[in-house]
């Protein structure tokens, strides 16, 4: 009997299951017949408009590869190939033209009182070493940097692809490694001259008279300390410009460190390029005034001694101070330890 009931139970269970399955089957079939699997799918144009960059997930360790599309590279290309070349061309050629016009009009600034033959120490050996360390590395950094932007247009057709590539590779390495020499030079220059580069009352007067640069009669000589207002401006432009170049430059040298994105790298390159060409243009003016533009000025950085008359005319306050402290120095020289 129990066997019979068990059999019935099994049949009933099977029937119940069949009913459940039969009833649930139509529910599945009730879904709409034509499904658009794209109804909720990501759309390229929509993402592009919203985000400017399309990023997802990948399966390889290189996280940069998770960026699917980054069309902003096109703006950077426009900057690098067109804008930067225009800015660089205008500020550098413009500065050369300005200096040439200035030279033709003004000529070399002469010493009104002539050379006395007596000299005074303006920059000691350490100051000159720091200046030339910075200067030589700057010139090489400038040329190799300009090569990246202008070399393809100016040098490549003339040198040919193989020679130009070899030169550019060396230029790149020089640029990267000399940045350290330049950084050390600028840091030393900052520490060494910062005290003498704070604005003083004399600077206001100097600026008002344009430093006497525009007086062909050489009669205008506003008093100045060791550095006149123009030199102080140059000093602060060099310090601030160098900081800007170092930050953007080291970002480019250590690409994608600390989560930097392609966008950050592009910005660093834009910043580095613009500040770089302005820097080159500024230093062209500095080179002009230190050599061709002013009689007796180059001595200060060659052997460090300038003519006393030059010092009196261009840096009268500094000269008086030096003559005052010169006696102090002479006394110092009599220290027994020497």
């Amino acid at each position: 009997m129990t066997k019979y009931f068990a059999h019935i139970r099994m049949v009933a269970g099977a029937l119940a299951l069949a009913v459940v399955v039969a009833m649930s089957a139509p529910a599945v079939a009730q879904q709409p017949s034509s499904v658009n699997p794209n109804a909720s799918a990501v759309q390229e144009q929509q993402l592009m408009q919203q985000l400017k960059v399309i990023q997802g997930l990948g399966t390889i360790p290189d996280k940069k590869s998770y960026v699917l599309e980054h069309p902003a590279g096109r703006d950077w290309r426009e900057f690098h190939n067109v804008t930067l070349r225009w800015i660089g061309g205008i500020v550098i050629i413009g500065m050369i033209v300005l200096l040439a016009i200035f030279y033709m009009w003004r000529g070399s600034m002469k010493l009104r009182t002539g050379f006395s033959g007596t000299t005074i120490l303006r920059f000691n050996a350490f100051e000159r070493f720091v200046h030339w360390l910075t200067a030589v590395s700057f010139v090489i950094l400038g040329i190799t940097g300009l090569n990246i932007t202008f070399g393809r247009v100016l040098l490549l057709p003339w040198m040919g692809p193989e020679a130009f590539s070899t030169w550019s590779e060396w230029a790149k390495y020089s640029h990267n490694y000399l940045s350290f020499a330049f950084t050390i030079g600028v840091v030393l220059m900052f520490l060494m001259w910062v005290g003498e580069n704070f604005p003083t009352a004399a600077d206001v007067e100097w600026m008002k008279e344009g430093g006497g640069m525009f007086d062909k009669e050489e009669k205008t000589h506003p008093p100045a300390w060791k550095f006149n207002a123009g030199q102080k401006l140059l000093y602060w432009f060099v310090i601030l410009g160098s900081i800007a170049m170092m930050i953007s430059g080291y970002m480019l040298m250590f690409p994608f460190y600390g989560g930097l994105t392609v966008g950050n790298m592009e910005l660093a390159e834009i910043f580095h390029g613009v500040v770089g060409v302005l820097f080159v243009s500024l230093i062209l003016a500095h080179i002009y005034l230190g050599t061709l533009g002013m009689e007796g000025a180059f001595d200060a950085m060659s052997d460090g001694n300038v003519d006393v008359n030059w010092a009196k005319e261009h840096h009268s306050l500094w000269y008086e101070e030096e003559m005052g402290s010169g006696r102090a120095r002479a006394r110092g020289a009599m220290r027994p330890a020497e």
Partner: protein
Amino acid sequence: MARMKFLCDADRCIECNACVTACKNEHEVPWGMNRRRVVTLNDGKPGERSISMACMHCTDAPCAAVCPVNCFYTTADAVVLHSKDLCIGCGYCFYACPFGAPQYPKVGNFGSRGKMDKCTYCAGGPEADGSKAEYEKYGANRLAEGKLPLCAEMCSTKSLLAGDGDVIAQIYKERVSRRGYGSGAWGWQTAYHETIAT
């Protein structure tokens, strides 16, 4: 001559990464570099899509435009290739590329990224077709053998299409009209300044 293009049908890609593996194997791409990769958008959410991406061999390629040593060239098939002998490893092509295609063998500090490597559309480089030097620098040259890129050939769902742009666009259009939906040819607007009207 044909205008070669890639087209990834995102509605078919199943993120199997066979294209990535095929590419790495065919060209013996070194560890750490990927000429092709699969990116998944909205991973795990409704509307998730995966797209296989490599160099798209752009019209008016940005990499070629910004290269400071002009090491890129475009073949008669409109494939964008480059010379590793001329490349100085500056990394600018990566900044310009909309698809993150350029790869570098070294980490990149001090500008020592090494020679850039990217998808060649299985078309090698400037060296003689099929030469040992070409293989060592750029991998296999399947195009010279009359074969299409291996990634697309291997694709299990035929999501990734390679070939003449007009032909693969036609295939894609027919697919879309048959199944009734399509999320478009990813990257085409950026790479080729055109889309496929579906």
